[in-house]
């Protein structure tokens, strides 16, 4: 097609400008996706946080088995609780021993079992908010037979704070970057438009439809957007293979990090949309 040819010619002729705008778009999309990946991973990591959280209810020494059962029933009745398991102090010692493995000689010297009876309370995975968990814990704590309740309060709080902070940050960065990418396409296409202003004037006089005049620019903006997206995907892959994989290998703490593959296909599409949007803005209404 004539429009496509014109667009390609123009991209090739203005290769430096096109390349630079693609690069800028690419890096912005890359950063955008990186932020999205971080948000996504934190979400994923924390989505099942209440579930993972085991609340350990430590019973007072010398609690009768009746009191014991009453506590068990009370906890079980809570709507947020999934499973409650009784862990006798003998079982707890066994577990400790197993976890110490070859260092269990430390325990050898004990005449008496120094541990306590306890309940392991598992929280439901869905529809449970941090506040619910806190309320539950407060309730259990107030029971007479209960000595103490242990759970990762500080951790949970901070993870949730981090999560909401990250969401806000991700959203604002997202908005700003979408604007920026559109703006870069806008300026690039606008410059091309000015370079071809005379030509466009003549086209209009000769009876070119608005579509005929604008198509090359739309195509051009889209090409720049797509290639920018491809560059972004490339950077993402490079980042993944040369940095993240190494990092994960070295610091297993980051194993949870994963980059959804869809992003790779999504980026060029997003780039195209933004490129097209920028071109449309750049050409405006285009008077006859």
């Amino acid at each position, binding site marked *: 097609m*004539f429009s496509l040819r014109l667009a390609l010619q123009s991209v090739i002729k203005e290769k430096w400008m096109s390349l630079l705008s693609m690069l800028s778009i690419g890096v912005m999309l890359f950063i955008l996706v990186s932020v999205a990946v971080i948000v996504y991973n934190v979400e994923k990591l924390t989505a099942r946080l209440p579930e993972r959280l085991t609340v350990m209810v430590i019973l007072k020494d010398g609690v009768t088995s009746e009191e014991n059962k009453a506590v068990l029933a009370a906890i079980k009745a809570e709507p947020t609780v999934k499973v409650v398991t009784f862990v006798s102090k003998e079982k707890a010692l066994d577990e400790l021993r197993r976890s110490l493995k070859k260092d269990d000689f430390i325990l050898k010297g004990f005449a008496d079992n120094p541990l306590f009876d306890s309940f392991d309370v598992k929280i439901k995975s869905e529809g449970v908010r941090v506040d619910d968990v806190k309320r539950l814990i407060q309730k259990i704590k107030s029971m007479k037979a209960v000595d103490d309740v242990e759970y990762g309060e500080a951790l949970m709080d901070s993870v949730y704070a981090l999560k909401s902070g990250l969401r806000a940050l991700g959203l604002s960065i997202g908005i700003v970057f979408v604007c920026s990418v559109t703006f870069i396409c806008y300026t690039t296409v606008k410059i091309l438009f000015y370079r071809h202003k*005379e*030509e466009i*004037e*003549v*086209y*209009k*006089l*000769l*009876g*070119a*439809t*608005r579509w*005929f005049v604008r198509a090359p620019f739309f195509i051009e903006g889209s090409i720049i957007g797509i290639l920018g997206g491809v560059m972004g995907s490339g950077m993402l892959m490079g980042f993944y293979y040369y940095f993240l994989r190494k990092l994960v290998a070295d610091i297993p703490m980051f194993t949870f990090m994963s980059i959804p593959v869809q992003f790779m296909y999504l980026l060029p599409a997003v780039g195209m949309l933004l490129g097209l949007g920028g071109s449309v803005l750049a050409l405006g209404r285009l008077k*006859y």
Partner: protein
Amino acid sequence: MIELENVSKTYGGHAALSNVSLKVERGDMAFITGPSGAGKTTLFKLLYLAEKPDEGTITIAGCNAADLKSSSIPLVRRNIGVVFQDFKLLNNKTVYDNIALTLRIRGFMEREIKERVHSVLKMVNLRHKVDNYPLTLSGGEQQRITIARSIVGEPTVMLADEPTGNLDEENEKEIMRIFKQINTKGTTILIATHNRALYKNTARKVFFLEGGILKGEEE
């Protein structure tokens, strides 16, 4: 073919055209003349639909300009050939590509384009310059290319605003000869000029415009 009825156009309080009515029949060759600032160019802008009149109705190439949706402006323009004093050729394209553009815009096939371009170049006597770039041609030659470009789409009307304003007498005569030839083939032509020499010796219709008012016409 071209008809204006009580047309007025105002630019920021200043009336460029006031209540102008005129009519050019199919196949005619007419002139609009008047001192500078009379409103000739404004009239042409209305005719090729680059501006809308404030008042009055305009009919050109069978279309009523007032009823026109803006998306059909290009289609009407394909029936109107325009020629300007400053040529408006694309200097980075060859003569061939400049003329072919008119047809490419309309989606013609390359083969037909080639045929038609060569036939109009023959008409303006510039077949040997087909691969030249506009800037390597003289002003007269460039204007002939512009005329070729405007007739290659076979318009029913031609509008020429000071087509010889940049040209010397010899070229002027040659251009006028080509216009007459095109007119003989049936195209309606309207030429704006303040050069009396252009219409002096022709027994054509002449409209006199001054200060945006039509002061008279002459056959």
